[in-house]
C-alpha cells in the first residue's frame, strides 16, 4: 500500500514538473530572459518566489523553464540508450557467435566512467543539445546491453521457447513475441534509471561549461552562474539544484517502485524475512 503511494507520488511530481514547464509561457507574464538591472539578486519574496539572479531575472520562472532541456535530454537519452541496448542485448543473448563480439565492445566502453566518456565526446562534437544527447546515449547504452543480455540468457532455454522453435517460429518472432515481453521489466527499470542519470550528467556538463549553450536556461547553467554569488545570494544556488533533486529523486523512486512491482521474488523474500524475524522476537 505504502509502495503504491510512493509510485503515485513520483508520477505526480514528474507530471507536475512536465506540465508546469510546457505551459510556462501561458501562465507567466515574465519571460525567463527578461533582464531588469534594478532587481539584481533580490531575495525570495511574494513577487519573486525564488528571488532574482545577477541580471535581475526571476529564478522561479527560469527554474521552471530549465526543466525543458533536462526532461528532453533525459527522455531522449533514455529512449536512445534503451533502444540500442535492447537491440544489442537481444542479439548478444540469443546468438552465441555475436555474443563475444558485442560483449567485448561493451566491456571496452564500460572501461570509461560514463561521465568522462560523455565529456570527451561533447568536447569533440561541440556542446549542443543534440550532441549532448548523442554523447550521453553512447555513454549509457552498454549498461543496458549487459542487463538485457543477462535477462535473455535467463529465459532463453525455457520450455515454451523450445516449443516455439519446434513449431518453426523464426528467430525474429521468438525474439520479439516470446523473449522481449518476458524481459520488459528490467528494461523499463533500467530505462528509468538512465533517464535519471542522464539528467544528472547533462546538469554536470552544463555546470562545467561544456554543455548546453550558456544563454539557454538549464539547471546546470544556472548553477554555474550562481557559483560566484553563493555567499551573496544563496537562493540563486539552492532553487535550481532543488529542481534537479526533485526530478531525479522522483525518477529513481519510480524505478525502485517498478522493480518491486515486477519482481515477485523480492516480495516473497520480504515476507519470508518478516516471518522469520517475527518468529525470532515472538
Amino acid at each position, binding site marked *: 500500500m505504502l509502495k503504491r503511494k510512493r509510485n503515485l507520488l513520483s508520477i505526480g511530481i514528474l507530471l507536475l514538473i512536465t506540465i508546469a514547464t510546457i505551459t510556462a509561457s501561458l501562465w507567466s507574464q515574465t519571460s525567463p530572459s527578461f533582464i531588469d538591472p534594478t532587481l539584481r539578486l533580490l531575495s525570495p519574496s511574494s513577487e519573486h518566489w525564488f528571488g532574482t539572479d545577477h541580471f535581475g531575472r526571476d529564478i522561479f520562472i527560469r527554474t521552471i523553464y530549465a526543466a525543458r532541456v533536462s526532461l528532453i535530454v533525459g527522455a531522449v537519452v533514455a529512449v536512445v540508450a534503451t533502444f540500442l541496448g535492447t537491440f544489442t542485448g537481444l542479439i548478444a543473448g540469443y546468438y552465441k557467435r555475436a555474443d563475444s563480439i558485442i560483449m567485448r565492445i561493451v566491456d571496452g566502453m564500460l572501461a570509461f566512467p560514463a561521465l568522462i566518456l560523455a565529456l570527451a565526446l561533447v568536447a569533440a562534437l561541440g556542446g549542443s543539445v543534440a550532441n549532448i544527447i548523442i554523447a550521453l546515449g553512447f555513454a549509457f547504452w552498454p549498461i543496458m546491453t549487459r542487463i538485457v543480455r543477462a535477462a535473455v540468457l535467463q529465459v532463453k532455454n525455457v520450455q515454451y521457447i523450445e516449443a516455439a522453435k519446434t513449431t518453426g517460429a523464426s528467430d525474429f518472432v521468438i525474439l520479439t513475441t516470446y523473449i522481449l515481453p518476458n524481459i520488459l521489466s528490467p528494461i523499463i527499470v533500467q530505462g528509468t534509471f538512465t533517464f535519471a542519470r542522464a539528467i544528472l550528467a547533462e546538469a554536470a556538463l552544463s555546470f562545467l561549461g561544456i554543455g548546453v549553450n550558456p544563454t539557454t536556461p538549464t539547471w546546470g547553467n544556472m*548553477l554555474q552562474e550562481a557559483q560566484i554569488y553563493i555567499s551573496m545570494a544563496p537562493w540563486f544556488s539552492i532553487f535550481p539544484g532543488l529542481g534537479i533533486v526533485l526530478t531525479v529523486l522522483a525518477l529513481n523512486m519510480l524505478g525502485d517502485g517498478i522493480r518491486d512491482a515486477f519482481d515477485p521474488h523480492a516480495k516473497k523474500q520480504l515476507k519470508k524475512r518478516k516471518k522469520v524475524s517475527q518468529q525470532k522476537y515472538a
Partner: protein
Amino acid sequence: MLQYTIRRLFSLIPVMCIVSIIVFMIIHLTPGNPAHLILGEDASEESIKQLEEQLGLDQPIVMQYVNWVKDIVTGDFGQSVYSSEPVLDIILGRLGPTFSITIVSIIMILVISIPIAIAAVWKRNTLIDPLFISISLLGVSIPEFWFAMLLVLGFAVSIPLFPVAGYIPMADGIFQWLYHLILPSFVLAAVEIGLVARMLRDGMLESVNQDYIRTARAKGVKESIVLMKHVFSNALIPTTTVIGAMVAGLLGGTVIIETMFTIPGMGQLLVDSIYRRDYPIIQGVILFIAVVYVIVNLLVDLLYTFLDPRIRYD
C-alpha cells in the same frame, strides 16, 4: 587460480583495443579539420600544416591509428598543443592531488558506510529500514556539484570551518593537506556511501537467515558477535564488487570536484584541456583513467576469487 589470472589478463586485450579505438577517435570526431579547430579561425596555412604533421593528421587514418598505438605503448603520449610539454609528464604531474582526494574519499566511504550498514541490519524491520532506503535514494539523486555548493555555503562561508578551495601537497604538511581535502573528499564520498551501505546491508540481510547463523545463535553466541563475525564477514564478499563501480564514480566525480575546489589534479587538467582544445592531453587523460579503471576491476575480480574460495571460474 593462476590459470584464471592468466586468462583474465588475456581478456584485457580486446578491451584495451576497444578503449584505444575510442580514445583515438575523439580527435577525429571533431567537425572539420582538427588542426584548424585547435589553432582557431585566423591560423595561417603554414601553421596548420605544421600541426597536422605533428599530430600525424596528413596520413591515412589506419596508419595514424597504428602509429598512435605504437607511440602509446612506448610511453609517448604526444605533446601538449598548448604548452608543447610531453603529455605523459603533464599527466604524471597531476596524479598526486587526484590520488589524494580519491584515497581520502574511499576511507571516508568505508568508515561511514560500514557502521551504518551494521546498524541497519541490527535494527532491521524497524523505522530504520525506510529511513535507510530514503537516504540512499537521496544519495544517488543529488548532483555532486550542487551538494558541494551547499557544503561550501554551510561549512566554508556561513560557518568558516573549512577552506573554500585550494590544495596543499602532502609534503607541505600532512595536517594542512588533509584539512584542505576534507570538504571535496566528503562530497565525492557522499554519493557512494549510500550505495556501498546498501550493498553491505543487502549482503548481510541475505546471510542473516542462513543455517550457520541459526546454529551460531542456537549455541548461544551473542547477537552482536553473530552480526560482526559471521554476518558481516560474509557480506564483505559481494561488496568488493562495488569497489570497481565506486572507483568509476570517484574518477568521474573528481572532474567536477577538482574544478570546483581548484584542486590541480587530472580532472581539472581534463576540463582545462577541453576549454583549450588540447586534444593530445584530452586523449591522454581519458586513456589513463580507462587504464586505471580496468586495472582496478581486474584486481577486484582477483580479490573476489581469493576471498571466496567457493567461486571457481572455469
